[in-house]
């Protein structure tokens, strides 16, 4: 068990690059346990790239990322296994494995990371699918259900191991307003019930103001973060014109 006083994720002096092209410089922030942390910014500002760094799909060009005080070492099997077990990721497209049924999709992380027997796994899987409103869809293949259902099934998979940290990449993309708002409810519920730390990449303002405890703003023109704090505060006292325009959805700066 990790130290409960450590932040869930601690990022210091992170630089992200694509080849020689620097995308973001000098990122410093921590994500506290049990908070809903939103990473926002315009298209192309590197939000998704930052997420890929946080979940260990990309290596930092410079700087460090600590998970509960531990460095994500891709080469060290034990450490990687421990960190990955504690995180769940909902990819933008859902990324369900198309060759597996929904139940098999949700069961795979359980088979990989726990010693549970087949019957217990089946029960956990049914519960997770029920939690996202997909009771009875166990034997369906991803191709046989709608986009919104696929996203929820993917969430059930991300939740399979009761992760301590849950990452969402653009959760509302491709969802109708009702489904998007339901997903927000579910996110709040997960935070309240399991105390899950939730990291969301989004530019859905409504969702940001409704669920985020704190938000981080990536400014593409300055190539670094320019704001960090509760979204309502950032809107009322914007640290930069860019943040103001983003949070008030306007195309001009303040008069």
């Amino acid at each position, binding site marked *: 068990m990790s130290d409960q006083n450590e932040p869930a994720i601690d990022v210091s002096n992170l630089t992200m690059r694509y080849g020689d092209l620097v995308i973001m410089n000098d990122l410093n922030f921590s994500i506290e346990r049990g908070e809903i942390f939103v990473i926002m910014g315009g298209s192309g500002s590197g939000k998704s790239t930052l997420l890929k760094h946080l979940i260990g799909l990309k290596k930092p060009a410079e700087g460090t990322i600590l998970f509960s005080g531990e460095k994500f070492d891709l080469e060290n099997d034990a450490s990687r296994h421990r960190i990955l077990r504690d995180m769940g990721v909902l990819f933008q497209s859902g990324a369900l494995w198309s060759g597996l049924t929904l139940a098999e999709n949700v069961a795979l992380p*359980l088979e990989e990371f726990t010693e549970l*027997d087949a019957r217990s796994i089946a029960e956990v899987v049914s*519960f997770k699918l029920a939690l996202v409103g997909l009771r*009875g869809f166990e034997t369906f293949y991803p191709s046989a259900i709608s986009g919104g259902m696929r996203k929820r099934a993917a969430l059930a998979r991300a939740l399979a*191991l009761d992760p301590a940290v849950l990452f969402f990449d653009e959760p509302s993309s491709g969802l109708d307003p009702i489904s998007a708002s339901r997903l927000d409810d579910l996110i709040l519920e997960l935070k309240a019930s399991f105390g899950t730390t939730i990291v969301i990449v989004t530019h859905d303002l409504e969702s940001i103001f409704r669920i985020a405890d704190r938000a981080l703003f990536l400014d593409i023109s300055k190539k670094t973060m320019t704001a960090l704090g509760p979204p309502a505060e950032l809107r009322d006292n914007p640290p930069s014109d860019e943040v103001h325009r983003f949070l008030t959805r306007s195309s001009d700066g303040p008069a």
Partner: protein
Amino acid sequence: MRTVQAAPDDLNTSAPLAELRREHGALVVVLSGEWSLSRSPLRFETLVTRDALTAPKVHSLRFDATDLGRWDSSLLVFLEQVRQFCEAEQLELDVSTLPEQINRLLVLSQAVPERATPKEPATESRLTQLGHAGLRSWATVQSALSFLGDVALAVTKLARGTAHMRWREFWVVVQSNSSGALPIVTLIALLVGVIIAFLGVVVLERFGAGYYASYLVGFGMLREMGALMTGIIMAGRTGAGFAAELGSMKISEEIDAFVTLGVSPVEHLVLPRMLGIFFMMPLLTLYADFVGILGGMAVTVSLLDVSTTQFVGGMLTAVTMVDAVLGLLKGVVFGVLIGFAGCWKGLETGSDAGAVGRAATSAVVVGITLIIVANAVIDWLAALLKI
């Protein structure tokens, strides 16, 4: 009172614990310890016994969670077992003493899906399956014919100069089927020539006619193997490539984008590909013929007492221009068939992740099958016409 406890596998935390006790005609499930998915799970049915319900009969079940430690989904799964048990035994379930968060999750998991679960399809009888298979085959034939029709229309428009075809794509296909295909065609054709020569030398030597191996190499490469082997290579290389390219365009809705713009994807995408391979196949066949004959000659010359001049001279007394032209004609036909199979299967691609792979595989299978059938038909016609 019965107790179940999971084996402690971590000394720092206490194992999950559930106890059952009776209290004024009610069952009380006492939950304590730390509940975690990484421990061996508890099962409610190992806790409850028949006599716990009778003598005297109980009517309700509630929980005592005062000593409950940290918990995760393993507890919720256990509670779901309790719920199902209560439903089966018609016990009143009282969850009011459970922590608020657990109750909220239970309510969430009990919510009815907004879309009713569709029924699983009933298993079909053999006869129905046969019927469906027949209908599917007919649908495949229809789709092939309609694609063929589209291609024919596109070719007519091209001849009239009204087709929307980008020549740049044509040249890309030409390029990938010329210099790009040469190494593999060289290797295979050379080895096929070698194989034919070995066959000729070994068999004909027995009759003292080893010299005629040159006839076999010449006829074999020009009439049959040059075109056939090139066709098979191209079906695997280019046909599969066409299917995969068009298939991924289909999945990313690029094909739909053409259609909604009123541009025919057949003219725009299929035509340059089919034309490209139509022109390149005879050239590659000619090249394969040449390389194959070289390989055959090398073997014949090295195994028998025959000079290269004798080999070429002998071969030329037997083969004629007609044999070479027949081979090239086959090359053209095979090219059309490969392009057809690749593009047709590509445009027919489904929408799941495995679809592109299936389209490419099926393009190769269909392409090679069509090539072999066409080869047999052309040989038969040639024999009829005494060519």
